[in-house]
Every structure is written in structure tokens, then in C-alpha cells.
């Protein structure tokens, strides 16, 4: 009997060895052959940096050097006569404040300074609809009536977001294009700004779509003539 138990020892040992091959809990990433190939030595998106900034930020993503121009940027130049140039020049030329205390005056400034540069087309409208579905419907609702699923639960109760947006039909006719663009980009009252989530082009596409929801015909494309130089237009 004793001998049999002794014989069992290696068997149990092997069994434990196999058992220990299993991953240890949900927080464990498992094993790898070559860590330097799996985990990049170069900085990957969102990886932490070993060197912190003087402010103590150790993100590998740093602010671009001052004067950097974004990819695809077209400078505000009289020789360039496309709508794209106009779109991009808004980013460079028109800096508006994020300060909620200055919201009203900045919005008024934008209303005077910015014109809708995007051509009215079926593609732009369709893309606007797609983007509206993703970014706006949670609050503004599918038809822009201000009854999205975060405002009114499908079950009928009040949703978690307690500020009900105004219906586009009553709101948009009172606003200039530039003012709408300001509100979409920088936010307005309880609405957050979408300048970080949507490109300039995408924002105008969304504006075209919400105007169609409000029953306003988009009369642009003519307002800013393609062939006219930007500088002369101003």
C-alpha cells in the first residue's frame, strides 16, 4: 500500500503541472513566446510613455508642435478655389472660445462670419443622415423632435438625460447657418460640442440633414461660389 502511494506521487505531480498551464484568472493575459514582438518597443496608440512631460503627463500622445498643420490641410490661399479649401480654412481662421460664459457672443460672431460651404447633394444628405443617426438621435430623436431614447425611454418614462432639446422645426428657422455650425462644433447649453467627434465636412453634412428634418431647403453651393477666391469672398 505504501509503495503504491509512493508510485502515485509522480502521477499527481504531473497532473498539477498540467493544471498549472491554465490561465490564472480573467486579469491574466496568458503567456507569449517573444514579448518584444508581441508588445511593441515603439510607442503604440495610447501606450504610456516612459518619459513624462514636465507637467507629469506620461501619455505617448503629445500635443503637436506649435505651427503644425493638420493632414489634408489646405491653406487659405487665393490660388486655391475649392470648397475643400473653404472647409479647411474655417478650422484655421475661426477660433472660437469654448468658455460657456462667452457662448452668446461667440455664437453671434460665428453667425456673421461663417457661411455654409457645402454643396447640397444627395450624397451629402445621406452621409449626414448616417452621422445624425449615430451622434444626434440619442437626444434629438430620429425626426429631430427632441425625444431621443435618452430623453424619453421607449417604455414611456423620463430618460436619464433631463434637458429636452428643442424641436428642429421651431429652433432652426431662427438660426443662421454659422450659428448652427457654432452650436454643433462648440456645444450649446447642455449640449456638448461635436468638433472633436465630427470633421468640418461631416458637421456641415449633419447640418444639411437636420435642416431637411426641419423642412428647410438647403440653398447652398450657390452661396459660396466654387470658382471665386476665398480672399475676395470675405
Amino acid at each position: 500500500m505504501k509503495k503504491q502511494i509512493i508510485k502515485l506521487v509522480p502521477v499527481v505531480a504531473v497532473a498539477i503541472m498540467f493544471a498549472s498551464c491554465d490561465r490564472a484568472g480573467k486579469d491574466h493575459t496568458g503567456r507569449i513566446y517573444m514579448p518584444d514582438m508581441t508588445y511593441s518597443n515603439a510607442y503604440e496608440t495610447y501606450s504610456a510613455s516612459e518619459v513624462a512631460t514636465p507637467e507629469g503627463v506620461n501619455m505617448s500622445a503629445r500635443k503637436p508642435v506649435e505651427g503644425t498643420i493638420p493632414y489634408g490641410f489646405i491653406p487659405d490661399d487665393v490660388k486655391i478655389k475649392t470648397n475643400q479649401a473653404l472647409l479647411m480654412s474655417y478650422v484655421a481662421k475661426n477660433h472660437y472660445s469654448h468658455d460657456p460664459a462667452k457662448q452668446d457672443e461667440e455664437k453671434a460672431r460665428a453667425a456673421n462670419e461663417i457661411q455654409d460651404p457645402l454643396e447640397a447633394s444627395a450624397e451629402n444628405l445621406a452621409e449626414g443622415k448616417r452621422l445624425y443617426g449615430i451622434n444626434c438621435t440619442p437626444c434629438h430623436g430620429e425626426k429631430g423632435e427632441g425625444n431621443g431614447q435618452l430623453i424619453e425611454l421607449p417604455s414611456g418614462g423620463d430618460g436619464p438625460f433631463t434637458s429636452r432639446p428643442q424641436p428642429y422645426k421651431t429652433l432652426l428657422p431662427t438660426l443662421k447657418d454659422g450659428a448652427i455650425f457654432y452650436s454643433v462644433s462648440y456645444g450649446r447649453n447642455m449640449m456638448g460640442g461635436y468638433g472633436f467627434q465630427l470633421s468640418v465636412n461631416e458637421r456641415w453634412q449633419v447640418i444639411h440633414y437636420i435642416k431637411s428634418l426641419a423642412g428647410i431647403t438647403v440653398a447652398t453651393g450657390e452661396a459660396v461660389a466654387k470658382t471665386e477666391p476665398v480672399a475676395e469672398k470675405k
Partner: protein
Amino acid sequence: MTILFSMKLENTLSRSKTFTLTTFLTILLSIGFLSASAEVDKAQWADGKSLFKSNCAACHNPKADGTGPALQGVTARWEAAGEFKGKSGKQWLHTWIKNYNDAVGGGYKYAVEMASSRPSAMNLFVGLKDEDIDKILLYIENPDAGGATKTTVVADAPVQEEKGAGATLYIFVFFLLLLVVILIGVTNHLDKIVAEKSGEVAVAKTPFYKTTNFKVAVLLLAIVFGGYKTVDTFTHFGRQQGYQPTQPIKFSHALHAGTHKIDCQYCHQTANKGKNSNIPSLNTCMNCHKQVSKGPKYGTEEIAKIYAAVGWDAYNKTYDQGKAKPVEWVRIHNLPDHVYFNHSQHVNAGKVKCQTCHGNVQDMEEVYQYAPLSMGWCINCHRNTEVQFGSNNYYAAYEKIHEDLKNKKIDKVTVASVGGTECQRCHY
């Protein structure tokens, strides 16, 4: 009711007691009025609610702070501010609601105070009648009188997936083996008894574990099981399927994407633009959480972590960038350095649903890695997935394949047929 009652009283009581009667009547009437206001006139309340929703709800909520302050108790607050220029606090409130400039210009102290309390000015509602304002105030003071209103949603806790299936199987097999051993023991014992009873001399049998057959069987089993386990363990090296790290903030995809049906790309908007799908910046969180400061499961605790990280002062509603610090989310999906993967190609051109690779994230309370992210898994999908050649304009450039499709030389186009299994597509 009150009037009828008082009429009866008037009949029965003598006229000499007029004074006491009037007093009595006043008290009765006021009691009647009080009880009426406590019950809330349903029709007026419903009117008030719809008026509030169309005029005020963009900035105000009876209970929650928004662009404008939370309004419940507003009548009492203005009443408490007292009479001025012969108008009561409530009358001043009416003036304020119609055109706040009149109240401020009128010099009412509380109005001046309120006007400077918020960065954004209130809209003008000159068109509202006094009775409409009364209805609105009735709704504001009794927001729950309708009965059916719920302010918070309690999300059903999603059922955790059964992950212990493997363990149960092992236990089951163990018990079956145990049963076999016991049964063998029982039959042996019975054999012995039968042999003893029949008077036969028991032949010394070799025990079963010393037979060659048994030894061979054990050896074979060991090779098969050990071999399988070894190969399996080695193929799992470098893969993290099921990896479910604890995140610094208990963000629930089940609540946001499941219950509230917020699109994946609302937060991960670069999935259709760039190589990486972004981890949303706190700016995106604040689009909603500027207002929503309390969740159904953890209350204010987890949302307060966002506020701390973004430097948001929820009381004064201001940001302090000096206090902002990044949230250190734990990366779940990691491809080795020598593999190129591009989100926008899959989301935009391929029109692949997020759930195909990430699983039903909308049901996950805590996200785990759904797919193995192994090369075999990639290749399998590239071989089997049909490209939407007809409807998707992205593939218009593949003229020869379009021609072959037309001439029925080929009947379907997979990712592999447009070069999806070429080595250099992902390794270069």
C-alpha cells in the same frame, strides 16, 4: 362641496352670529383650497406638463440641474424673497418668466441675483398667459403627480455567460470513472462470494492493472491527452481570448450600448476613419455626463471618477484643466507588432459589424476579448466572407472580377479572391 356645506350652515345658524360665521367660512374655504391643491387638478397638471416640455424643458428640469437651475420649490423661493413695489414674490416670478429683463429692470432684488447666477440668459416667453404659467408651476412643484414618471432606469443585470462548463465536464467524467472503479470492485467482490459459496478454490487472478492491455491503454491515453494538452497550451501562447481586465472605471457597455442603445461609433468614432478605433476622450463622456451624474448601479461613485479625471467641478459647472489627468484604461485587444490591422478598412470598406469581431459588447457588463485574434481566425474569415461586390462602390476598381461575375465564370467573391490572404496584406 365647501360652498354647499356653508349654505347649510348659514340656514341653521342665526344671523346674529355673522361675524363668527364669516371667519368660520374663510377657514373652511381655505381648507377646501388646500385640499384641492394637494390633490392636483389632473387636467391642469397635464396642460402644465406639455407646456413645460415645449417651452422650458430645453434648459430646465423640475428635479435636475441643467442649463437652468432645478425648479422644484421655485414658487416658495420667490415667495420667500418677499413683496416689492406692491407685487408679491409670485407675481414677480410671473414677470420674470415672461421677460426676465422686466423683473431685473424693476429692481426686484432676487431677480437681479438670479440673473447673474448663470452664464446663459433665460429666453423670453412674452406670449405665455398668467394661467399657463400657473399650470406650468403646478407641474414643476408636483412633477411626479402623473404617477407613471420614472427618472432613473434600472438596467437588468445581464446574465453572466456560463464559463465553468469545462470544469463541470471534468467533474462529471471524474465521477463516471469513480463509478466504473466501484462497479469493478463490486463485481470482483461478488465473484469472490460466488466462488466461495460454490466451494471452488479461487484461482489467483492477476489484478487488472498488471495486465499488458491495461498498461498499453494507459500509455496510449497519456500520449493522446498529454500531446493534445501540450499542443493546445503552445497554440494558446500569445493569445488572450477571454481576457477581461479590471478597468479603472466600471464603465458598463451593457447599460450604454444595450439599454440606452447608443451607437458604438458615437464614442469610438475613429473606427471608420483610422487604423485604430479610439478610446473615447473624456470630452465624449462629458457630452452626457455633464448632466447625468448618477448611474443606476454604482450611483455617483463611478461618474465622479470621470469628473475627477477631467477636472470638472460638478457644483460650479466649471472645468479646471490643472486638475485633469488621463484615465489609464487597460488595453484588451493587442495584436503583435508584426501584424497590420486597419479598423477603417473593415468598418468602412468591408461593412463588417463591430460585433463580428468584438462579440455582443452591448450585453457585456465588463468587456472581454471575444475573438482569439489568431492568424487562423483572420484567414478563415477572409476565406469565407463574401465581399458585397454589387452594392459596395469601394470594389468598383476590380474590373476583371466584375467581368468574371457577369460571365458567370465565378459565382462569389470572397475577401481571399481580392487578395485578402496575401501575406503582404498584413505582414510587411
